[in-house]
């Protein structure tokens, strides 16, 4: 689990960066009302895991592909 998480977490993140990011995300998300996809902004200022921001996309329609050998 630790290895999986290392791509995400960065303990050097600052609170200031977090708040600036949150504001810019909120601003951007307000523009998505007519988008075919929904996006959810999630923020977590937990110093322990160090996440600064996550914009999570959630597709309304998920069209998956079929596959064959090349």
């Amino acid at each position: 689990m630790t290895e999986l998480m290392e791509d995400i977490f960065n303990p050097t993140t600052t609170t200031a960066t977090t708040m600036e990011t949150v504001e810019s995300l909120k601003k951007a998300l307000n523009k998505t009302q007519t988008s075919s996809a929904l996006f959810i902004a999630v923020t977590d200022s937990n110093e322990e895991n160090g996440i600064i921001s996550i914009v999570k996309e959630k597709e309304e329609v998920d069209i998956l592909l079929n596959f064959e050998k090349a």
Partner: protein
Amino acid sequence: MNPIILGGILRNFYDSLDMAQFDMRLKIQKVVYLMKAKDMNLGYDFSLYLYGPYSIELTRDAFQISDLVKNFSGIDKVIPSDKKEDFSKFILELEKDSRKDNPVWLEIVASYLFLKRIGYESDKEIIKRIKEKRPDFNIPEDEIKKIIKEINEGGFFI
């Protein structure tokens, strides 16, 4: 997704899959995200993290591949049967200038397309957001602009 199918897709881009390497994990994330941005959706939901679009489910599946096989041995290449032409073009685009092996190019382009999709409009705003993603991001703005200009002019990813 079935890790063997995922492996078969990734096999089109890479000859080995060393998940112990950060760069390899980053490249997989961005290539699969770029596929999604080109309407070749492998079924992963991505979120914007420090290095751009990231799917934890994809990381789990990729680790499963590397647990199952060593260096892709025994995994045949797989292509999306209803997107053959798009996928061929996609491979060529990523082979151009070895983009598929350039973590900076992949991070910037995937982040750019993600931010476009969520509603960022101006390149100026997007570049600012890309630079803010992580405190240690030190790619010169001119380089970011050059990559963005290149993909806008190329027309394939936009």
